[in-house]
């Protein structure tokens, strides 16, 4: 009987284990292998990783823009998530649908629409022009790239914040008020620390795609604002050098891992110190 149980267990989980090994773990191993081998001889080398040095400013720029976007997303998403969480249940559902709907629509076309809005002769500049404000340089700037990131990934921040805020125990807020906290104190001492898990998962969901994007920077940025994603993409699609591309991807993964580690650490300590 036990033996049959074991066979059953393997039959159910085996195909999945094999699938994930072949299509998740092996590909990761291939990235590592390509990153550490010479494109011509196939021998072990660190040249690819060393070659990244000249692209370090690009890495810095990507992390900086993605971090600013993630921060802006927190600031913008928080009040929105709060308002939604406070709304009547039937209204909540509608509002959440409205937040999710843009996520399902073509992100390429939506980004292109921003090009039309921000162009030198675009809609925003014409609106400003009719108010007597001269044409501003909106597109092909870092600001435009950040705007594109915030626009595309904002829903990914609103959703986790909303789900944390709806589960918030009202009694804790009431207790803080009973114990003499002012409105702002309640927010900073009770509500905000309790929403830390939402902030963390939202930040991950915004930061990771933002730091590795290559479409947003291509459309809204200038040639000077090429990001890591652009570099990796061009290694695979234009100047074919998968070894360098794999090395960049490896560094990108390690970097994200470190960023997440630092963030979790901060958030973790924060909670501990409070208790």
């Amino acid at each position, binding site marked *: 009987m036990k033996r049959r*149980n074991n066979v*059953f*267990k393997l039959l*159910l*989980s*085996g*195909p*999945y284990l094999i*699938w*994930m090994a072949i*299509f*998740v*773990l*092996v*590909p990761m191993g*291939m*990235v590592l292998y390509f990153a550490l081998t010479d494109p011509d001889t196939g021998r072990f080398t660190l040249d690819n990783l060393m070659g990244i040095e000249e692209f370090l400013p690009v890495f810095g720029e990507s992390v900086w823009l993605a971090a600013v976007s993630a921060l802006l997303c927190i600031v913008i998403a928080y*009040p*929105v998530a709060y*308002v*939604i969480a406070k709304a009547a249940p039937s209204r909540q*559902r509608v509002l959440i*649908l*409205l*937040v*999710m*709907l*843009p*996520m399902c*629509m*073509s*992100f*390429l*076309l*939506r*980004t*292109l*629409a921003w090009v*039309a*809005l921000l*162009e030198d*002769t675009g809609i925003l500049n*014409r609106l400003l022009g009719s108010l007597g404000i001269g044409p501003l340089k909106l597109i092909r700037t870092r600001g435009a790239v950040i705007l594109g990131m915030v*626009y595309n990934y*904002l829903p990914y921040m609103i959703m986790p914040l909303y789900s944390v805020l709806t589960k918030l125990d009202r009694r804790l807020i009431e207790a803080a008020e009973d114990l003499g906290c002012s*409105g702002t104190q309640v927010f900073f001492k009770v509500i905000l620390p309790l929403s830390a898990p939402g902030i963390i998962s939202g930040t*991950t969901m915004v930061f*990771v*795609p933002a*730091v*590795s994007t*290559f479409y947003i920077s291509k459309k809204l940025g200038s040639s000077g604002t090429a990001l890591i994603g652009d570099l*990796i993409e061009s290694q*695979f699609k234009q100047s074919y050098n*998968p070894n360098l*591309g*794999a090395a960049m*991807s490896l560094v*990108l*993964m390690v970097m994200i891992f470190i960023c997440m580690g630092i963030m979790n650490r901060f958030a973790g300590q924060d909670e501990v110190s409070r208790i």
Partner: protein
Amino acid sequence: MKRFNRIFTVAVFIFLYAPILLLVAASFSSGTSLSNFEGFTLSRYSELFSDKNMLGLLLNSLIVALISSVVASVFGTVSCFGIRRLGRRAQKTVMTVTNIPMTNPEIVTGISLALLFVFIGQMLKLKDVMGFWTLLIAHITFNLPYVILSVMPKLNQLDRHVGEAALDLGCTPIKAFFKVTLPEILPGIISGGLMAFTMSLDDFVISYFVYGPAFTTLPVEIYTYTKKPLPPKLYALFTVLFLAILLVMIVMNIVQARDDNRSRRNKNAKGEITLTRI
């Protein structure tokens, strides 16, 4: 403060929907530019529906999204039962691996799969490995975690005793599964499957690295268009898809509302039972 938050929320929704409304408006414009509305026309829609090429691309996207999400839903659900039977440590490892496609940047998932496919292609001496099958495999791979992560919690919530009761009352294990277990976890399977479907339908980054010239999906084609001016019928297609997704969401909303009401009523009913028992 409350007032400010409300006004701010409205402003954010305008920010989220402005580009979408712009695209919808452009689908009715007789000009080709997104930023100028030149005159009302419906001809973009007739162009769209007579363009076999574009409808073919849409069909390709739908085929990949549908097959990959259905396969991932069935495969993922079956696997959940298997994973739960594993030891604690094995279970943890498997879930970590499951999370890799979710936490890795899409571009890394895309290139890693591309490296694998090229390697396999060289081994099998195939000329064009990239095509329908590589696209499908990639989509199933990134869809599986969505299903697993939404079915697993449902399985963990499952009351074992109900299944056992079904067996005691003479159900065969298969019958018990279809009559008791499956209905309980079905909401998880459906929401995971739907999420997988929408992710797959709009996926561009991963598809871009594993598609072949023989089989292209709509987002990949839109990306390669961007060097030329976009054909305006794409805006018409965007509008049609927007309305379709809106419709699906409204239906889901109604179903969910009904479900919520029912579970609330059930809860009340259960409360009554415990009360009468007392």
